[in-house]
């Protein structure tokens, strides 16, 4: 069961990655994506992972979130080893602890903004799903757009709905994949501000993949990934 809060790895990291290797197979040839990655992120910390396109950022994010399994290494999420538990157990872990924000928003086009936010609450069987979703949408400034479908919303508004959805289940950790990648800089700033604010308010651990240096700068820690290798960038240093 995944109820114990204390880390099995013996520390109090929200995420710990050890000697993580991953490759994909293309035309029967393995193509390395991640090499010997080591990473620790404490509870409540915010971390940005930056790097060029194709450097493996998103793959790392997906592996840390338990959406995929690596070839070798260890990943501990809130004290649970992701590589030794089953997909069902990983799913249970995600349901109870993890939230996501995607570059392409991933809103269901047939549902209204309100229903999109209610969806994860309903899946977890929360009774007051509607009230909570309304509150969150109000919190992200979309109280006038509750009944609008994604098509009727601008990109910034869609991402705000996605953020509200991500925070709806009060996740312990939020994974964000290029949350401002599809937005102009002004809108991107607003969305980033909202994300950081909610993160602080809920004390969530935030792991974010981004190209946006300004957004990365707002995180407690920054990691650079290059050709599958990860380095932590000392705070205050330029890329």
């Amino acid at each position, binding site marked *: 069961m995944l109820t114990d809060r204390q880390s099995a790895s013996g520390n109090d990291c929200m995420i710990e990655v050890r000697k993580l290797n991953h490759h994909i197979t293309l035309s029967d040839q393995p193509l390395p994506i991640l090499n010997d990655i080591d990473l620790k992120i404490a509870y409540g910390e915010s971390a940005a992972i930056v790097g060029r396109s194709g450097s493996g950022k*998103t793959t790392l*994010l*997906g592996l840390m*979130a338990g*959406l*995929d399994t690596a070839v070798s290494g260890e990943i501990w999420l809130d004290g649970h080893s992701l590589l030794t538990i089953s*997909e*069902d157990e990983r*799913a*249970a*872990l*995600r*349901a*109870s602890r*993890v939230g*996501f924000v*995607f570059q*392409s928003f*991933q809103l*269901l086009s*047939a*549902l209204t903004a309100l*229903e999109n936010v209610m*969806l*994860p609450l*309903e*899946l*977890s*069987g929360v009774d007051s799903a509607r009230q909570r979703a309304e509150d969150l949408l109000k919190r992200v400034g979309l109280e006038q757009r509750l009944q609008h479908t994604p*098509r009727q919303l601008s990109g910034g508004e869609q991402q705000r709905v996605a953020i509200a959805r991500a925070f709806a*289940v009060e996740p312990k950790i939020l994974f964000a*994949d290029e949350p401002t990648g599809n937005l102009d800089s002004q809108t991107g700033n607003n969305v980033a501000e909202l994300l950081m604010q909610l993160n602080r308010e809920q004390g969530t651990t935030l792991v974010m993949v981004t190209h946006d240096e300004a957004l990365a700068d707002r995180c407690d820690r920054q990691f650079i990934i290059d050709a599958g290798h990860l380095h932590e960038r000392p705070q205050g240093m330029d890329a």
Partner: protein
Amino acid sequence: MNAILVFRDLRQRTVKVMLVSLLIAVSSVATISLFSEHLQQTLLSSANAFLAADRQLNSRSSAPIPIEWIGQAQSQGLKTSLVAEFSTMVASDSGFHLVAVKAVDDHYPLRGELDWQSDLDSPRQSIMHGPARGEVWLNPRLMRMLEVSLGDEVEIGVAAFKVSGLLVREPDARMNLSALAPRLMMHLDDMPSTEVIQPGSRIRHQALFAGAESALVDLEQWLEPQIAGEFRWVDVRQTESLGEALDRAEAFLMLGGSLAVLLAAVAIAVSSREYARSQRDVVALYKTFGMTGRKIQQHYLFRLGLWGVCSAILGLLLAIPAALLLASMAARLMEQRLQFQWSLWPVWPAVLTAAVVLFAFAWPAISRLRDIPAMRVFRSLEQSKPAASLVETSLALLAVFALIWLYTADGLLVLALFSGLSLLLATLATGSALLLKLLGKLSFTWQSWKMAVIRLKRHRSASLVQLTVFAMTLMLASTLILTRTALLSDWQAQLPEDAPNHFLLNIPADSVESVEAFLTEHDIEQNPLYPIVRGRLIAINGTSANEWIVNPEQVSELNRELSLTASSALPDDNSVLAGQWFTPHERWGVSVEQSIAETLGLQIGDELQFTIGAEVISEPVTSIRSVQWDSMRPNFFFMFPEYGALTNQPATWLTSFYLADEDKLILNDFVRQFPTIALLEIDHIIERIQNIISQVSQAVEAILVMILLAALAVMFSVVSATLAERQREGALIRTLGGTQRLMNRSIMLEFAMIGFFAGLAGVMAAELAVWGLQYRLFEGQFQFHWPLILTVPVVSAVLIAAFGRWQLKPVLQVSPMLLLRRLE
């Protein structure tokens, strides 16, 4: 929670398409089952009017029906009626005449109606009872011959009766010898008072039964050991003229129902595949929310189940008024009162269809969603298709054919459809590959063509799916059109409008010329004259007929005198199956009808011996003929050459002609001029058969229209289901500078090409299926149907192109920017 999500799902286009397909499936199968059940009941009860009952028990000798048999029938809840028929003389002040008396009780008729007039000038009325005690009804011609009018008295034997009406038609009039004399109807209770019936008198007793089918079957089983040769149990299906028409109509309705099931399967297979595709991103998202593969499967299983139940209920709710509407239309066409017969059992095929089709076709694609990787949320461009495995497809097809088999209990039908579909799929697989290769090699200068061909090639598998579905749909629709055409033309040929409806029998040789002159004078077109020589078959190949025949009851025709005839021409509706028809001046040989040849085991060359009067003739079998007994034309078991063995035998002559109802008064002159010639009027029998056949034809047409509508709906739902991708591509092409005109033309050309080839393949496969069905099920001759082969591809090309154009209208009219935004 699940239920809320399911209802939200309804907003998705793919879900709507799938539900509409399911709804069409359930409602069309249910409508067809309900309607055909109703129709069968209606047709059967209409056909039963032929017997004035659901079943008859007729005495072969003059033995009355034992009273305990009637008691047994009544104790089983059946309605009963007793009838007796005999010939006697009726006398009036002006003379007397031979009449065929029908004595009926108070319950006659149990089915059908009598046509009755209160006097010669009053309108006909339909009534459901016979004359009261002490009264008689006369045939209008008899009334003139006896020179009596209403209220006058006539005498039968020692009793006098008041003439109280004119009997125009009785429902169960038959073509038999007693019908040679005009009809008089009286009450059964009056029969003893006439003292006409004495021991040894020829009288035919009849019991009529009507009621629940199960009780009738029980009664038949109870009677069977007791009736032994003395009585004959009659079911309307045994009557040659109708039994076959009813059987064929039933086969057609069954075919219609099966095609509805197949169409439903096609629609659901396609739409569920598209639905599964559209759910991949959603499932990936659910996984990020923490749903497990098993939970996702349960989630979709619940949806499918709920949709199945909802569409079954809704489909039935739609089907009931639709079937009622069809039934009331049919009732209007058939000029009958609507009596919709409710029964729940026709509903099960619809519910079973929904369940089987949904789970056989939709579930495999949807269950595979469980394996969608959660990482898809980051890589939504990845377009892996939920391919169905061969095993899954085979199992699904097997399930559907099992369903059809269960539904029709007809292995041959399933086999014919299965072979047609297999040929179709094989042709499509090879044909489309070749076609795309050929199109690829041709260089097109016209930009629209170029684009259409490029798109066809690029979306090879999607095009193939559409092509297959369209071709299957068109095959099923064409199969139905072809069988319907074959059925209708067959029936029309059986009894054309001007089929002879009067027979002249016993024409003495010296009256032949004057009869011909009479007919010519009255502009009556006369059919061939046949000499009738009465004779008996006594020996076959030197063995006496009684020894030759194993079971004499099977050959009841041989126990009486046969009507032998001679002709140099083969009758129109006969065809020679073995041997040769007589050459013009042939002097020897005999041609034998197929069924009697089979019963007697006769071969070409067998020697047949007949006695004619005191003379014995011996002739070899030179040909075996098929005879269309239901054509109501003169037909004979044994025919001799014109100058053959019958030439010098004493003969009377027989002919037939068509006489319209309004010309019937001519017959009075005829009877006066030729008092010894027997006139057999079968116009009312023919009219009734024509009426029933036209009812069956209307029913067939109604089913055809329904299936065609369902086929159109399926084709449209398939185009709709695959539309999202085309819309996206269209939007991109427009963004990249494709003009509306170019888009318009290329889309229409692409759809037209798919429509044309689907039509061609579909109609060819339909020909194969029809060949199979025609050959065995409908027992007809097969021929290619060129008009349909040429029309279907063109019509399908035009229809599908127009529908594609209509569906892609938003892509063509809206600005590319708005379009891309919408499709995001």
